[in-house]
């Protein structure tokens, strides 16, 4: 496949790069340390610009799916539900999804996510907490997946963590021109980009964004 390719979709908006767990198979707990990205909630100005980017792709007909998540736990963002509603208003027919560890998930979350047609993936890193979230998501008809894949279909974040490497597969991010807007507004080509080295733009820039393989691809199971 030829690179660089034009970006075609904002596939993720990382509302927060902070997390309330420290799982050894995830690089999230490294964020904030030297050489890694910072831990922060997305500011409103960055969020507005992020939505504008997604809307532009939506109008162009290439924005089909958006995850309101990144390396952190999105529910930690103090304005999470408000941002969900604003995203749905801006993108009325885009498939919206979140993934959560469920620790903070309440009935109010389930209700608002349901109203806004957001599908929910739950990662049971702590089963004793995740069950309540799964129950509520089921109750409101928004549960799409309870992920046990960290065990059944593992990956090591392109070598960033000490975990079993994933099986080779095509990289949909690069091949489909997916973009990941990080919590500080920078745009990465990759969902594994915990160090911010795959940056190809920023939401405050107006130029078109292009994607291409970057240094993490050399150690990744996903093939450009």
């Amino acid at each position, binding site marked *: 496949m030829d690179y660089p390719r034009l970006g075609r979709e904002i596939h993720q908006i990382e509302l927060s790069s902070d997390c309330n767990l420290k799982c050894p198979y995830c690089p999230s707990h490294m964020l904030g340390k030297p050489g890694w990205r910072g831990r922060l909630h997305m500011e409103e100005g960055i969020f507005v610009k992020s939505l504008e980017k997604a809307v532009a792709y939506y109008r162009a007909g290439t924005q089909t799916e958006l995850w309101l998540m990144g390396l952190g736990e999105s529910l930690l963002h103090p304005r999470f539900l408000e941002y969900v509603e604003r995203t749905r208003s801006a993108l009325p027919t885009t498939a919206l999804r979140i993934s959560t560890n469920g620790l903070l998930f309440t009935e109010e979350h389930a209700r608002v996510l349901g109203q806004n047609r957001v599908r929910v993936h739950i990662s*049971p890193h702590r*089963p004793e907490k995740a069950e309540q979230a799964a*129950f509520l998501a089921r109750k409101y008809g928004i549960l799409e997946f309870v992920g*046990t894949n960290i065990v059944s279909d593992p990956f090591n974040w392109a070598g960033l963590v000490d975990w079993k490497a994933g099986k080779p597969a095509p990289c949909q991010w690069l091949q489909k021109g997916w973009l990941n807007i990080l919590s500080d507004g920078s745009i990465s080509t990759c969902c594994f980009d915990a160090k911010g080295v795959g940056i190809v733009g920023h939401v405050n820039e107006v130029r078109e964004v292009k994607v291409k393989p970057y240094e993490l691809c050399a150690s990744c199971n996903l093939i450009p």
Partner: protein
Amino acid sequence: MYPRPVTHIRQIEITSRCNLRCVYCTSPNLGRPKVDMTEEIFQKVLDLAARWMKGGTQDRISLCGIGEPTIHPQFIQFLRLAREKLPEGILDVTTNGVKFTAEMARTLADCNIFLGISMHRPEIAGRAAFLAEQYGVAFKSHCDPVMTPTNWAGQVEWRMGVEKYPCPWLRQGGIMVMADGRITTCCFDSTGEGVVGTIDDAMWLVKPWQLCKTCHQFP
């Protein structure tokens, strides 16, 4: 319909001890002794299962109950014994993975024993799954407390997230041999109140007992 004769052993609880304290499990507050099954009892149970397999009423058996089997000091030896005495049996065991080792994985593969891996702690269960895969063990990981939650017939404070269905234990005459050699009609029996005898008895009959009233599996 009841009482019915016992026709097979569904589970051998090789230990009733556990190295986790999960809030959705009866194990932390087990109302019966936390002990390891002796080799003598285990041999008797296997002899009985072998007879029933020969007789055609038994084809599979799980080597676990309310407890973590891998912490039994003779776990590996018990796996080999089970395969030796039940050469045609479909055998399985479930672990939380905390004490799972390469030697266990190798033995499970040698003995063709299926491994269930409970994801109580994914960071631990994952390591067990990778070892199992490395040694060619047939295995499946699961997270039942989230996917198919139960409250153990009201014994723990947890959600009942599964539909009611007929109890295969009572209806088919299945039993669990507990770690101390007593026989119960029920895999949820954390108190021993469903006991219908011991492994040294000549026969056993099963019938509904008090926990059936609060259980999602009906007699």
